[in-house]
């Protein structure tokens, strides 16, 4: 697929073309925060940013999502019988998503759509109806380490289109047929633009100096890593607040709860966190991960050992650095992984 060029002054008409089939969402400035929101005009778009605080995972896996509803009335012939929620009405396009976040969804596809038995229809419905138009990172943050996590600042995997900012214009690279169809009418990029984009890529990759190795993590067996002395230290400063799990684009644990009000009832799923004591607490009182050490270990083991074993090598981390930036006690995932690998 040949690369295209799009002048920033012509973005409006490109958006109009997308809008015909999709509702567009993008990172926008809201007061001091950069947040994901629906957009209408090209003027709302932001071009200079590192990344949004929260990952866009809630587009596919909302913080609270109704799974089904029921009439909360046992006398009604239809009462207490669960009814499915309706699927997403209008397809969505996530514009200017960072490559690491798109890669995270591809990892999560392996979790939510594992096989016939583990096919999460809620996740799949929204994934199938969402177009991902990425914006390559020309200036990665100091906490980024995507290049160590099978990803990178200009990584294409999981995207339909990758945009590279060249100042007053964008290089448009279609990754999928869906992306190709939308960009077919744009003018072809010149060799100079293509060269400039690849220089940007090289510079961005070179600017990521944090490197994390996983060779020993991969070669050690589960119990060796589980009993590694690193866990005795890592958990000490952790306060089990769960912030890392909510900001993480690949953390996907959830709880399911029933809610009722009068005659209406619904079953919802909410983001949950493995940092919580209740997460694994048995009704009997027994808790297989009863200590803070158990829970901290679980989060890192899950991402860097258990997921690769189960998901054909896919690591549960894309190196976006959010957990490191948001941790209230300064736990740095790069240091933890390096210690696990030591």
């Amino acid at each position, binding site marked *: 697929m040949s690369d295209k060029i799009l002048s920033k002054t012509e973005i409006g008409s490109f958006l109009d073309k997308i809008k015909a089939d999709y509702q567009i969402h993008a990172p926008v400035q809201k007061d001091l925060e950069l947040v994901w929101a629906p957009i209408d005009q090209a003027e709302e778009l932001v071009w200079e940013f590192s990344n949004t605080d929260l990952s866009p995972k809630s587009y596919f896996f909302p913080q609270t999502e109704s*799974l089904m509803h*029921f009439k909360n009335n046992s006398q009604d012939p239809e009462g207490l019988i*669960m009814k499915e929620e309706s699927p997403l009405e209008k397809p969505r396009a996530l514009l200017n998503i960072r490559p690491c976040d798109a890669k995270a969804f591809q990892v999560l596809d392996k979790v939510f759509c594992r096989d016939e038995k*583990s096919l999460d*229809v809620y996740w799949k419905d929204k994934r199938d109806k969402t177009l991902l138009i990425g914006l390559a990172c020309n200036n990665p943050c100091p906490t980024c380490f995507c290049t160590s996590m099978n990803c990178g600042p200009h990584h294409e995997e999981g995207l339909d289109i990758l945009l590279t900012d060249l100042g007053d214009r964008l290089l448009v690279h279609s990754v999928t047929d869906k992306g190709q169809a939308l960009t077919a009418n744009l003018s072809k990029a010149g060799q100079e633009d293509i060269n400039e984009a690849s220089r940007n890529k090289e510079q961005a990759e070179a600017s990521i100096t944090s490197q994390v190795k996983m060779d020993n993590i991969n070669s050690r067996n589960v119990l060796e890593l589980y009993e590694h002395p690193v866990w005795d230290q890592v958990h000490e400063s952790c306060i089990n607040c769960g912030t890392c799990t909510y900001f993480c684009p690949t953390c996907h644990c959830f709880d*399911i709860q029933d809610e009722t009000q009068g005659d209406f009832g619904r079953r919802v799923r909410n983001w949950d966190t493995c940092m919580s004591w209740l997460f694994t607490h*048995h009704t009997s009182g027994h808790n297989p991960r009863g200590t803070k050490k158990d829970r901290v270990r679980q989060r890192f083991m899950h991402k860097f050992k258990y997921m690769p074993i189960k998901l054909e090598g896919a690591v549960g981390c894309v190196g976006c650095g959010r957990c490191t930036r948001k941790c209230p006690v300064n736990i740095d995932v790069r240091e933890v992984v390096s210690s696990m690998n030591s």
Partner: protein
Amino acid sequence: MKNPYIPYPVKLTKVEVATEDKSLRNFEMEFLNPDHAKEFKYLPGQFAELSIAGYGESPIGIASSPTEGDRLLFTVSKAGVVTTKLHNMEVDDVMGVRGPLGNWYPLESMEGKDIVIIAGGYAVTTLRSTMLWLMDPENRKKYGDITFIYGARTPGMLLYRDEMAEWAKRSDINCHITIDKEVPGWEGLVGFVPTITEQVAPKPDNAVSLICGPPVMIKFTQPVLDKLGWQGDQIIMSLENRMKCGIGICGRCNVGPYYVCKDGPVFTKAQLDELPKEY
């Protein structure tokens, strides 16, 4: 696309107190839609989420055997929100069942072998399912000797006692039912399950053992089997952990990389020996 989170609507057809302390009840149920009964194809060792709208779900091992027909049986201990509500429900009440979930006992690879079943307390439910499945005439001929060892605190705490009395009369089942301490009127075995296992001394040659019981029973039965020469891959166990989705996604029931809800609940001891003891 089939939605794996939607329970099948079922109606309670029989509810009975199962133990003398009234902490366990047997719940029999049938599907409101006969097509669902056909979809719900299960094997002994699997479980289901019992779903009560407005209360939630609870993962419970299936105590009935598919060889018994379409009715489902669950024996449930009253413990949390859902099971307490369930204990207050009556015949004809409507609820939901989601499943079947998880893997099952390796019935196929057990063919041609002697089977030793060791159970304690109310962990016997899926082993009742297994026993009925094995005793089905079509299946019975595929297996060697069947030894069944089961213990509870008192005669009144034994589950499925009348059925087991029938099994004991059969010549093709070695049935050993025991209680912890002597009680007037009890003429059967007395002693903890590990002690009885030691007396029965099941041979490991070309045999498979299925063990379900409280942790303390498993802890003391293990050395008995070790002494008799049983190997880890011959010992099959079933785990329990807190669960929500039941299909290996929501992230809480894992033991190492494996989800008890999907990759389990049935594991061999050899498998468990290589995993953290997070259960």
